Structures are given as structure tokens and as C-alpha cells.
């Protein structure tokens, strides 16, 4: 983590960017999924990535913590600077990077273990707790932050897969928080949830903004409009338009954005 912070952060004119992607292109074998995408992610804000299916927004998200490394035949070009240091530099260990840039997936994917062990797993492998009390503390705080503690306090040892879908997703968020990341990537975190569970998760995401930088991929434009401060519209592997959420949804500059947010395609 320290080596990522060596270079000074370039100061943006309006706000501090924690991540800046420069001319990022991604190839899966011969197929190009992203074409020279550049994007600044402001710190402690929620940035949402919207666009039709297959537009490359999830691909972009998975570049930010190098989850694309696990995909066979995937190649990334360009630079992604986290606090000014390129995360694709050979010196960067992707394990530490992923501890700093947490991720929540589309389908809730708790480990088939107890709720406690789910949350404790990250701190355990990174050695964040030195004894049982510290670990307990991390687990309880993380569950509290994820707004799940009240519901599961008396059954921390029951299995995480026995929770409801919304609870499972909040458990996954708690699990990500337990590693104490700076940034949380969310890949359509509500797409498998019902409206009530979605509302709860959205509320949680908005609360988390105070302490974390959040990047969320979503298919729901209402969701993007409700919770995010900055929105980027992806189309066919390129960013068509990026700007403040309010401005992008009320007066889009590009007609493709206009078309997408008014529901003419996508």
C-alpha cells in the first residue's frame, strides 16, 4: 500500500481524484472491450457507471482492482493511477491492491461459512487483528457499518448463505469493509435484490460515502440518479459523456446519452 502513495497526487481543478484512468483499453483475446477510456474518480463521492449491456462498464470496474487479471487472455493497456501510482506497474502486488480497493459483486456471494467467519476472513488473511478481541471488534464494527449487526447479532455463528438476498449482499459489503479499503467497487449490487432490499442497500451506500470512495455499476438509471454525484455513460467500449449526475441526467450534451436516459435504447 505504501508504494502506491509515493507519487504526489495530481490536483484536479475542481476536486481531488483518487483514481485517474488514462487511455485504458482492454482486450479479451482479439476482442477489444474498452477503447481508450479516461476517467477521474473523485474521492469520497459515489461515481456511477451506466450504459447498455456489453458497453464495457463492468470491464472498466474490474480493471480498477485488477480482477481482470484472473480472466484468461485479458490484456490491459493504458494507465490507471491510484493516488498517482500506476496499479498495473510490475512492482504492484495485486493482493495488496485488492485489499485497498474492495469489491462487491452482482450476485451476493457469501462464503458458505458462518456470518462471523465471512467478515473475519479478510482481516485474518491480511493479519489485521492480533488477537481474538481485536478480530471480534473488526467484525462487529464492519457489520454495524453495513447496517446488519442488529439483524444478525444473536446468530453470528449461523451460516451466511442462510440469510435473505438483501442481507447476504449487506454481509458481502461488511466483508469488504472489514479489510478497511479506501475504495469500494460495486458491480450492479442490487440487480439480484427486491425493491425493499435495494432501498436498504442504497441507503447503506449513501452512508458509506462519508468514509469511502464508491464506484458503482448499475443498470438502473434511477439508482444512479438517486445515489451518485458523478456519472459516466459508457457506450460500445467508450465513455460518451461524463459529468455531475444532476447535470448529466437533466441536460445531457450527447444525443446518445439523451437517448439512453430517456429510454430510447439500451
Amino acid at each position: 500500500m505504501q508504494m502506491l502513495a509515493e507519487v504526489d497526487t495530481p490536483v484536479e481543478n475542481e476536486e481531488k481524484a483518487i483514481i485517474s484512468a488514462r487511455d485504458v483499453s482492454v482486450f479479451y483475446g482479439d476482442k477489444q472491450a474498452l477503447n481508450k477510456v479516461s476517467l477521474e474518480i473523485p474521492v469520497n463521492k459515489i461515481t456511477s457507471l451506466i450504459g447498455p449491456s456489453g458497453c464495457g462498464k463492468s470491464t472498466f470496474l474490474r480493471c480498477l482492482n485488477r480482477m481482470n487479471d484472473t480472466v484468461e487472455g485479458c490484456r490491459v493497456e493504458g494507465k490507471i493511477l491510484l493516488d498517482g501510482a500506476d496499479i498495473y506497474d510490475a512492482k504492484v502486488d495485486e493482493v495488496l491492491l485488492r485489499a485497498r480497493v474492495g469489491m462487491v459483486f452482482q450476485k451476493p456471494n457469501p462464503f458458505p461459512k458462518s456470518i462471523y467467519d465471512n467478515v473475519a476472513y479478510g482481516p485474518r488473511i491480511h493479519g489485521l487483528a492480533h488477537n481474538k478481541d481485536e478480530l471480534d471488534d473488526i467484525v462487529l464494527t464492519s457489520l454495524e457499518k453495513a447496517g446488519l449487526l442488529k439483524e444478525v447479532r444473536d446468530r453470528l455463528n449461523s451460516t451466511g448463505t442462510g440469510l435473505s438476498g438483501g442481507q447476504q449482499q449487506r454481509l458481502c459489503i461488511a466483508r469488504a469493509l472489514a479489510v478497511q479499503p479506501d475504495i469500494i467497487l460495486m458491480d450492479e449490487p442490487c440487480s439480484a435484490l427486491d425493491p425493499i432490499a435495494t432501498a436498504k442497500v442504497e441507503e447503506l451506500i449513501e452512508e458509506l460515502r462519508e468514509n469511502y470512495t464508491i464506484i458503482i455499476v448499475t443498470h438502473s438509471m434511477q439508482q444512479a440518479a438517486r445515489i451518485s454525484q458523478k456519472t459516466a455513460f459508457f457506450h460500445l467500449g467508450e465513455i460518451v459523456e461524463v459529468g455531475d449526475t444532476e447535470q448529466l441526467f437533466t441536460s445531457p450534451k450527447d444525443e446518445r446519452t439523451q437517448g439512453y436516459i430517456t429510454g430510447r435504447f439500451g
Partner: protein
Amino acid sequence: MTDMAPTSSSAKSWDSDETRANLKRRHRSEKRFRVLGLTAIFIALTLLAILIISIAGKGATAFIQTTISLDVTFAEQKIDPKGTRDQEVLRGASYGSLVREALRAEFPEVKSRKDLRVLFNLVSNGSPNKLRKMVMENPELIGQTVRVQFAASDDIDMFTKGYIPRDVPEDDRRVKDKEIAWYDQLAEKGMVETRFNSDFFTSGDSREPEIAGIWGAIVGSFYTLFITFMISFPVGVMSAIYLEEFAPKNKFTDIVEVNINNLAAVPSIVFGLLGLALFLNVAHLPRSAPVVGGLTLALMTLPTIIIAARASIRAIPDSIRDAALGLGASRQQMVFHHVLPLSMPGIMTGTIIGLSQALGETAPLLMIGMVAFIVDIPGGVTDPATVLPVQIFLWADSPERAFVEKTSGAIIVLLGFLVFMNAVAVMLRKKFERRW
């Protein structure tokens, strides 16, 4: 029909004769298929029932033993005339004469040498050994007269069990009229008994069917499977993990995969030849030993375990891998903390099935000399040994009538082990089955 005329000309009428005929044909075809399926199952079950009934019918009597009780006088001047009670003296004494004395005492009227020889054959040839063991364990017996239960000779045993009927002409049966007369006398005095054949389960092989047992083969099988497991399980699981989780997908791994699948189809005798060439001729490991048998069977079991392990590793959804990697787990941590524990039930099932294949395997073991006649119970993996299926093969090859039931008895025991192992595999699968 006219008032129900479809609104659109392209709509199909669901009530026409053609549709009905079509439907009928479809139902008929389905019915035919069901009958075919049922017939197939019926045939399979019938064949299985024939197998089991025939084996059980022939083998059931192997678990019963005919015994003849005789009063044996452990005369001191015969066993240990000097009274030293030295182990060597006790071992070297002629216990055969004690048995003969006991029989002679029972039938004082038998005088001719020829008749005596027949008389002595009433009890098993292993009887002197039994007395030797008794005396060596308990020298106090010397000087006493004790009633001892001897195994009857195989012919008498067969006669008792009804395999040698009384009503065939004397020339056509192995038990002569005289023997039957003696037998009847003994039976009248209550000295002939049938009891559960515990010797069958506790002793090693023997040329005398009445005292031959399968314990040696069971122990040999155990040691062999132990070696097989110790080699093939770690190697198989590690290969599967590497191929599934770490290896790049390229031409080389494709070739490896194809070859592993081919290896699973190689006839077992070929593995036996390989074992002979490699472990005996090159490595000079001991012949007939479980260590060599285990290594050879490990070669054979390896592909089964690799294939099963790969399948169950592949069945773990990627979402679990993503979850672990997303938290900053290394690839190895992901595998050993999540993927491997979750796929273990499947791997164990595959391993048990592989091992039960190995348990029933005979051909490769013939090649490496595990077909030798071995009386002693093996005490370790380097002692000469035989295994259950080879024991069955050996007994099936023996001419004595009494080995027929021994063969079937051993088959019953082997099938029992196999059923047990497969039941464990099924239980494991059921218990840890997980839906994602």
C-alpha cells in the same frame, strides 16, 4: 367447426383429426419407450439377482465349519520327555502322534495300516499345528487330557454340508463307507459339531481348505490400498488443483488433459507390466509385496482421482473465487481456504470409487507376483502378501471341492467391502451436497 373458425387464417386447429392422430402417435411412442426402459432395468436386475443368489448360495456354507472333538492326552514323554519346557523342544515335538493317539483311542477296533490312514484323515491335517499352538501358549497342558475341537477334514466337512451325498455308489464319492460309519459313531457321541467358521476370518491361506482363511488377504488388501491411497490421493488432488486453478490454458495443458483421460482407459494389465518393469526390475523393490502392488494400483487410480477432483473443483462457482480474490486473498489462499474444502466431498467420493476399483483389481497384481501362495499374515508393506481378489483367483483355481465354497465366501466378503465403500461414497455425497 364453422362457428369456431379461427380469426386468423394461419392459426392451427387443435381439434382436427390430424392433430389427434399425431397426439396418439406421440403417446404411443412415449409408452413404447417407457416399456423398453422398464425391460432394460428388469433384465439388469435379474442378472444381478442371479449373480448374488448363486454366490450367496454357494458361499454361505463357507462361514460354517464342521468340527470333531477328541480327547487328547498331552503325554509328557511324547512332548517333552526331559521336562525342560524349552520353547524349541515344545515346538519340535510330534503333535501328529497325539492326534493319532486320540483317534485310535476313540476307535480301538481299527488295526490295519490302510484303515488307520483313512481314520487319521477324518480330522484336518492342520490339527497338529493347533495342538502345538495350544501347548506353546500354555505348557501347563502337558500331562493332562483335554477335549479339543478339531476342524474336520475338507471331505468330512463337505459330507456334513451335504455336498457329498450318502446315496451315490461308494466308488463315486470321496468319503468311503468306512469313514461314514466312523463319522456316524462320532456324531452319535455328540463329538461332531458345526459352528461359525471363525478360522475363515482369522487365518491365512492354506493348502487345506478346511483351515484356509482370508485374513491374510484382507490385511494384504489393506496395506496395498493404504499405499495406493497415500500415493494417488495427494498426487491426484495436487494435479487436479494445478490443472484447474493455476495452469494456463494452452496446447500443452490440452495434451496433458487428453492423456489423463486416455490413461483412465488403459487396461489394467498394462499397468501391471509397467509396475513389473519399473518397480521390480529397475527399482528392485521386494516381489509380491503390498508396496509394489500399491504403487502399481496408484498408477491406475491416479487418472480416476484426477478426473473426479477436477470435476468437483470445476463445480465450485466462480463467485466464490471472485469473493476471495476480491478481498485480497492470493490465488493459493483462495484455493486452500475455499475451493479445496468445498470440493473435498466430491474429491473424497471420487477417491473412494477409485480405491474400490483398486480393491477389486487382480490383473496388474498377477504381473508383480502378488499371486504367490502366502500362508503368513503380512506384518508390513514389504512382507509378501496377497489381496482379496487374487485370493479368490487362487482358490477358484484349486481342485479341492471345498475350495468352491471358500471362493464364493471370499467373493461375498469382497463384495461386502465394495458395497460398504460405495455406500460411504454415496453418504458423503448426500451429506455434503450443496446447491449454489
